[in-house]
């Protein structure tokens, strides 16, 4: 499981501290499923888990969105086209795209949590006839912090995808909703008796989102979250990412709330 050197094709600055790398895939038969991540290696600095944010239908590209939060991600967000980074993976479990077929799909995300969900959204739009109502509820810190703003604008223009965006803070120039992402649930079109929800964001946001979705009538067997822990090996051997009975790198990052049986609510786990 050595990192495979992959050349950076291009770098897009999404936000002040967030960048998207377009990489040459590690192999000719590269593929991944929505929800998976890779371990990205900044040579001489270290390795971090990064969600894949690209199109699962395009095997010619490995697209990853990174926020600079520490030495390794700082180094990874400093690369330029032509540089080489190391890649291991893809690792981890997938969003339940087949299970969601025939049902309404509610995609709830906040902040950089949109990146791990973008492959699921792209997959859904590619196979739009397989799903009922599809709704994206996205919360950001402010209007200036909207990730993939151009793509969000494109998606809002579609008639087969409902996109509702809220921000935590804004002045009067922002014409959209202000408030937490859960405040959008009442405005979304979905059948709580059968819909599937995919949730990704800061853990506090996910906890409150799960509570609100359950209050709306959804059951935990149809609620899926993407967990973040200190992934190191990526293959469930080192134990750094243990969450209760799970190793998040292998058994996750996508987990159903039913399977987690409250691990999300257990302190120090």
């Amino acid at each position, binding site marked *: 499981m050595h990192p495979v050197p992959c050349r950076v094709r291009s770098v897009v600055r999404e936000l002040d*501290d967030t960048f998207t790398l377009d990489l040459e895939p590690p192999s000719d038969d590269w593929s991944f499923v929505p929800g998976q991540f890779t371990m990205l290696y900044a040579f001489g600095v270290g390795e971090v888990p990064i969600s894949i944010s690209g199109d699962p239908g395009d095997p010619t590209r490995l697209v990853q969105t990174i*926020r*600079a*939060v*520490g030495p390794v991600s700082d180094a990874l967000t400093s690369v330029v086209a032509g540089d080489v980074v190391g890649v291991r993976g893809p690792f981890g479990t997938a969003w339940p795209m087949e299970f969601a077929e025939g049902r309404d799909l509610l995609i709830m995300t*906040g*902040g*950089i949590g949109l990146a791990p969900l973008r492959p699921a959204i792209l997959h859904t739009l590619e196979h739009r006839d397989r799903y009922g109502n599809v709704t994206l509820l996205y*919360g*950001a*810190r402010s209007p200036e*912090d909207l990730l993939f703003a151009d793509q969000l604008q494109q998606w809002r223009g579609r008639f087969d995808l409902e996109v509702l965006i*809220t921000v*935590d*803070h*804004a*002045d*009067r120039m*922002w*014409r*959209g*909703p*202000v*408030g*937490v992402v*859960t*405040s959008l649930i*009442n*405005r979304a079109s979905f059948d709580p008796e059968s819909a599937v929800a995919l949730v990704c*964001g*800061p853990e*506090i*946001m996910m906890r*409150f989102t799960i509570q609100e979705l359950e209050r709306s009538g959804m059951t935990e067997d149809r609620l899926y979250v993407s967990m973040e822990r200190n992934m190191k090996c990526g293959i469930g051997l080192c134990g750094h990412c243990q969450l209760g009975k799970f190793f998040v790198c292998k058994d996750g990052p996508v987990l159903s709330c039913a399977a987690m049986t409250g691990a999300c609510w257990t302190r120090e786990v």
Partner: protein
Amino acid sequence: MSELFDLLVEHPFFKGMSAEQVRVVADTGMPVSYREGETIFSEGGHADACWLLLDGDVALELQTPGHGPQVMQTLHAGEILGWAWMFPPYRWHFDAHVHSDTETIRFDGPRLRNAAEADPVLGYELMKRFTRILVDRMQSIRIQLLDVYSTPR
């Protein structure tokens, strides 16, 4: 029964209230429209009403020195605007600024208070509903204060 009664009795906010209780509430209400840019109430003003938003968007704002109005929260169709009419000293805590043309039912606060005092069962039903609004908004503000989307360093 009036059109307003028919509207309220079907509304989720009033679900679980008896027809008579809804009729009492409906008697205090009247349709009011606001144009984009209007101010429904201002911070510090006398809180004498609440509104059921039927259509449109309203922003709750705080004036901040040097930064102008900051939007704390927006309210949308189906939501209730205004709870300060329930509690002394009956003063608004925010400005309510109309983001887009808005249709509402405006309920008279003093008449609602009198009705609640006269009928404690109705008063409790109203209190349960407005307390839910307060709890939801308090939780929202708490999460917003945590600034969960900021970059952890």
